[in-house]
């Protein structure tokens, strides 16, 4: 080696010798860059394959609460004097697709002189507003039924809807389009959507991670966390690992599995996601479920999940108050200088309830429940499912934070 350097220096001089050395090393530097990409590719594949063993695709029935939410607006209810055949058709609907209408001359008189439209009432108002976001435009529609409020979010991404719950019109054939995770060796599956038992008229079809198909039956579901537990007829798949962390650290790398088009992607977690999907940490553990801005922590949900496996339902103590999520863009965020902090608004306190006895008032802002930040109904419900003893609420009132201990009726 020394001989080679001496020969080099004598023949071409030291500046040219240094340049030759740099050029000789350049391919090595380039080769290392390629190696890093390949390493990332291998790591991603390994993570995906690890997760796939614990993920199944499931074909779910259409959720009954869709009809419940729209019951007041159903034309069969708004138009009392319909012909029985028309009523039957619009109540059952077509097996797939939708009913159309054509206005034509009629050859028969109506059954009586009453105008069908006399029974029509003004329907609920839908608030539809486009929300800018990194993933494109989302259409939000807010609906209220009693104390329950829901928002229907339909994001449009390059012309494709990204779905929370995939409904197959007509349910013809086997078309598993929703995701579930294997919870345990007994074959329990967790679907991060709410479905009621009466919707299941038998087992549902499941496609396992290895491509095999199986059947699963309903075990239990919880409306407030939006979770449903099924059980495989024969245990299969690898139980998923639930992350100890309640949510991903901001800036960390996560994999998001979405039921829409079987999409999976790596993302940098920024505190929330407008997508709908399972959020997987880089170590392969499930951290939670992103739902169009809401995030339900998997670890916080475990008490509710265990209750569903054990008894098919989740029992919670009752505060006696109505709380509503303060979403991004809500005027209350600016009014109370909340920034991006998770918060909920106490809309109503029931007289004589545990909440009233504890001193809670309508208009209070809930920041924490049992020292856990709460910004949405599923998280509130998940924390409450783990309740043992009095609950502690951190409230923002008149610009000051106060803690209230709520003792529930036994």
């Amino acid at each position, binding site marked *: 080696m020394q001989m080679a350097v001496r020969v080099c220096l004598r023949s071409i001089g030291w500046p040219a010798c240094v340049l030759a050395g740099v050029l000789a090393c350049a391919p090595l530097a380039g080769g290392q860059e390629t190696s890093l990409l390949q390493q990332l590719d291998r790591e991603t594949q390994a993570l995906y394959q690890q997760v796939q063993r614990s993920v199944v695709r499931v074909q779910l029935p259409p959720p009954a609460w869709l009809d419940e939410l729209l019951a007041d607006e159903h*034309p069969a209810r708004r138009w009392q004097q319909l012909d029985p*055949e028309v009523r*039957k058709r619009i109540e059952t609907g077509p097996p797939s697709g939708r*009913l159309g209408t054509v206005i034509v001359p009629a050859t*028969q008189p109506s059954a009586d002189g009453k105008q069908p439209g006399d029974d029509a009432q003004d329907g609920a108002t*839908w608030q539809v507003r486009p929300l800018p976001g990194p993933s494109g435009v989302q259409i939000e*529609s807010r609906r209220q039924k009693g104390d329950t409020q829901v928002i229907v*979010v339909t994001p449009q991404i390059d012309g494709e809807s990204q779905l929370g719950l995939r409904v197959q019109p007509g349910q013809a054939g086997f078309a598993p389009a929703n995701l579930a995770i294997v919870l345990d060796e007994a074959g329990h599956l967790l679907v991060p959507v709410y479905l009621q038992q009466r919707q299941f008229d038998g087992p549902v079809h499941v496609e396992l991670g290895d491509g095999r198909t199986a059947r699963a039956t309903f075990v239990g579901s919880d409306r407030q966390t939006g979770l449903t537990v099924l059980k495989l007829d024969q245990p299969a798949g690898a139980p998923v690992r639930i992350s100890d962390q309640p949510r991903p650290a901001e800036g960390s790398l996560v994999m998001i599995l979405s039921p829409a088009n079987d999409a999976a992607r790596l993302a940098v977690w920024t505190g929330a996601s407008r997508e709908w999907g399972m959020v997987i940490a880089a170590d392969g553990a499930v951290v939670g479920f992103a739902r169009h801005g*809401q995030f339900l922590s998997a670890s916080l949900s475990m008490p509710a999940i265990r209750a569903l496996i054990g008894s098919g339902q989740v029992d919670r103590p009752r505060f006696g108050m109505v709380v509503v999520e303060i979403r991004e863009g809500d005027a209350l965020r600016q009014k109370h200088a909340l920034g991006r902090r998770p918060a909920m608004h106490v809309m109503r306190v029931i007289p004589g309830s545990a909440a009233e006895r504890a001193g809670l008032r309508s208009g209070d802002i809930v920041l924490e429940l049992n020292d856990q930040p709460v910004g949405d109904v599923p998280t509130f419900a998940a924390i409450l499912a783990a309740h043992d003893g009095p609950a502690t609420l951190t409230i923002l009132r008149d610009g000051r934070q106060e803690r209230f201990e709520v003792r529930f009726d036994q």
Partner: protein
Amino acid sequence: MEPISDQTELLEQYLDGTLEADEAARVEALLREDAAMRDTLEQLRLERDLRVRVFASLEGGHREADAAAERFVASVARREHVRRLARMARFVAAAAAVVLIGFGIGWTGRAALDPQPGPVTPVAQGEAASYRVAVAVTDDAGNVVAVQPFSSIDEAERFSRDLKAWQDNRRQLEQGGVLLVGDRF
């Protein structure tokens, strides 16, 4: 019994009101005695009714009406096919002809009757037809599955809008992610 092609022409003229009084009386007498002929008359009325609806829909340029027109043309083609079969059958024994006619009427009526399960009451011959507005409800293939009469076009339009809005909302619920944002605890 008249051969089916002659019988159909006779009934068409009867519906058109172009028969002489004695001929019309003869047809009515035949109708009273012949159930198959009554079915044929009913079928002709239904087809006429559908034709009126299709033409009315085409005036509005509805896509559904285009589909209905295609179905109507198809039903006519099927009907012609059956008529040819029936002409061949006229040379067969009268009893066999009755069976074939019954089959032909049933086959012919299938396409047009299926889309019209609603209580469409034919207008009585000689009675002034009180035409009003109706909404023909169609399935996803464009078949008319039910008919709802209304007193005015405004009512019919309101009903159509209601049905469309409800279906749009339901579709949005099916395709969107439903978030529970407020509840009682």
